[in-house]
């Protein structure tokens, strides 16, 4: 027997009420296409905002924090047998620098998860061109290392990063800064720090990240320039930026680095907590909408099967009279619900993909968003199909059980 009799009856009922079947399948189709579209949009948005965050934040930042003084030295000096307490402990200035950064980098290079590292020394400065001044931050970096992490080369609108590397008195500035101070490649500008140190640098290039806060304030120079501005020695480094293989697994790597080096580590998640909260809220909104749609689709199937069972109650009675058991009747109607679910799910996958595809080509053009960010993940399609069929199953189960309880004597005798 190719197909069972239950299947055959279910299929016949479906095909003889084609319109009803299509309408209820459309409910599932709509639910699943929305599920896929919403998830693709949310995932796309999340990935986009993550990408924006990671374009200016390293996965892990290693720096030296001022620490509250403790009794360690006192204990060592006074020996055992005494309990030392410090009332009103004060913060100890660490000088904000990382001692012997090259040794630390060498050590960290042995960690297999770490893919890129970049030394930083930064300070806030006043940029000036003639009488016009702008506030900002200058980052002293090895531009090749920095480029590996943040792909600065691709954001350059004029000049190249190699020109900065070749010019000890060069500087790369953001496009916003370049407009405000009316400076282009080859021009000179003055940098002044809070302690009065000044330097005149040649502009080696202009970058545009499309993030306003960065383009309007940031500039990159070679490390010694900032060290000179701060009157510090050649080993003065304030931060080490670290990128790892999987940016979602920062927690344990950062804990390990912290234990290893003794310096404070900050992950990109903790420095972007509000953005991650936004991501969570978006997820919740999307799930709420999607679940609502699926439930509505489920009620559609439930309704139509209830109607079918009401119409066919005599036929169900006859089937039972001629030897169909309760489980056979349940099987017939659950099958019907599942076929509707599968049919709707398949159409929903297609529709979901089509909607996502068309929306992904919608031009937005705001800030650095050109087109609506849409992610295409197989996972969403599999989940969508799964949820669709599950909804159909439960929507069919209740009417099916009701049908199985039909008493043939009552129905046939009227």
């Amino acid at each position: 027997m190719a197909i069972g009799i239950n299947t055959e009856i279910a299929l016949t009922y479906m095909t003889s009420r084609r319109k009803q079947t299509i309408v209820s399948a459309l409910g599932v189709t709509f639910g699943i296409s929305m599920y896929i579209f919403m998830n693709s949009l949310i995932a796309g948005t999340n990935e986009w905002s993550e990408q924006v965050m990671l374009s200016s934040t390293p996965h892990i930042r290693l720096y030296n924090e001022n620490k509250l003084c403790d009794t360690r030295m006192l204990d060592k000096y006074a020996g055992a047998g005494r309990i030392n307490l410090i009332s009103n402990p004060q913060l100890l200035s660490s000088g904000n620098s990382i001692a012997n950064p090259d040794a630390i980098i060498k050590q960290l290079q042995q960690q297999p998860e770490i893919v890129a590292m970049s030394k930083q020394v930064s300070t806030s400065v006043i940029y000036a061109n003639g009488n016009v001044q702008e506030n900002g931050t200058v980052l002293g970096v090895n531009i090749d290392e920095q480029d590996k992490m943040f792909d600065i080369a691709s954001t350059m609108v004029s000049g190249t990063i190699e020109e900065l590397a070749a010019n000890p008195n060069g500087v790369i500035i953001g496009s916003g800064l370049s407009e405000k101070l009316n400076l282009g490649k080859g021009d000179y500008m003055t940098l002044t720090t809070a302690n009065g140190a000044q330097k005149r640098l040649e502009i080696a290039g202009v970058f545009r990240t499309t993030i306003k806060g960065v383009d309007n304030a940031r500039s990159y120079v070679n490390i010694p320039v900032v060290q000179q501005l701060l009157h510090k020695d050649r080993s003065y480094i304030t931060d080490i930026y670290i990128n790892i293989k999987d940016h979602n697994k920062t927690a344990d790597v950062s804990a390990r680095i912290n234990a290893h080096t003794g310096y404070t580590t900050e992950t990109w998640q903790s420095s972007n907590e509000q953005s991650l909260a936004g991501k969570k809220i978006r997820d919740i909104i999307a799930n709420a909408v999607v679940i609502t749609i699926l439930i509505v689709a489920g009620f559609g199937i439930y309704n139509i099967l209830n109607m079918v069972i009401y119409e066919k109650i005599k036929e169900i009675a006859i089937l039972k009279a001629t030897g169909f058991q309760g489980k056979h009747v349940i099987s017939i109607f659950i099958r019907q619900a599942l076929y509707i679910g599968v049919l709707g799910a398949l159409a929903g996958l297609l529709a979901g993909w089509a909607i996502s595809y068309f929306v992904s080509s919608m031009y937005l053009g705001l800030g650095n968003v050109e087109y609506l960010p849409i992610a295409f993940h197989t996972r969403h399609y599999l989940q969508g199909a799964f949820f669709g069929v599950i909804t159909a199953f439960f929507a069919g189960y209740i009417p099916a059980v009701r049908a199985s309880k039909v008493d043939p004597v009552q129905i046939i005798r009227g």
Partner: protein
Amino acid sequence: MSIALKAEGVNKYFYTPDKFQALNNVSFEVKEGEFVSVIGKSGCGKSTMLYILSTMDTDYVGSLTLKGQHVTGCSQNELAAFRNRHLGFVFQFHYLLPDFSCLKNVMIPALRLGKLPRKEIEQNAYEKLQKLGVAEQALKPASRISGGQQQRVAIARALINEPSIIMGDEPTGNLDSRNTAVVFDIFRQLAEEYNKTIITVTHDIDFASKSDRIIEMMDGKILNQQ
């Protein structure tokens, strides 16, 4: 001749709207190959009795044995399987499934039983339809043929699993005299040639008088059986 059906002390009560005794201590036997008609006025309990005999109604007191098997107290699923295998029904209305062809309607109980391959079932169903003279309607939807033809298809459906007992609840109640005669002849032939036991409830005295035996009922009791 062996006993096909044996009812002993069957009592049946209805509780809604008021308590009412529909069957009062009904006992009788039917032999294999017998053609029995049950007659009586409306409300005398003859249909009620038939539905108990058919195992569909299990809410009764007493004991029922079909084909030597004691069926009182069996579970609904066991009874459904038993009906599928051993009993055939013909109702006043044909109760065919209108979405299926006549042939498919006849095949369904056999497909449920699942003893034979589909090909053979189709062959058997077609033969049954042929025997009942409705073979040329086989592929038409069950809702598109005349009342007499529908009833004959329903009889074919009742016969498909070769049941030994066939029950009819006013099988000719909705038919004209010509079709009534056809149905009667079919029943008569089934009893004589194929040794089927036939129990029909009927209002039609003519139909009843031509059968082997008449059981007359009144007020839930058997008045007399010839």
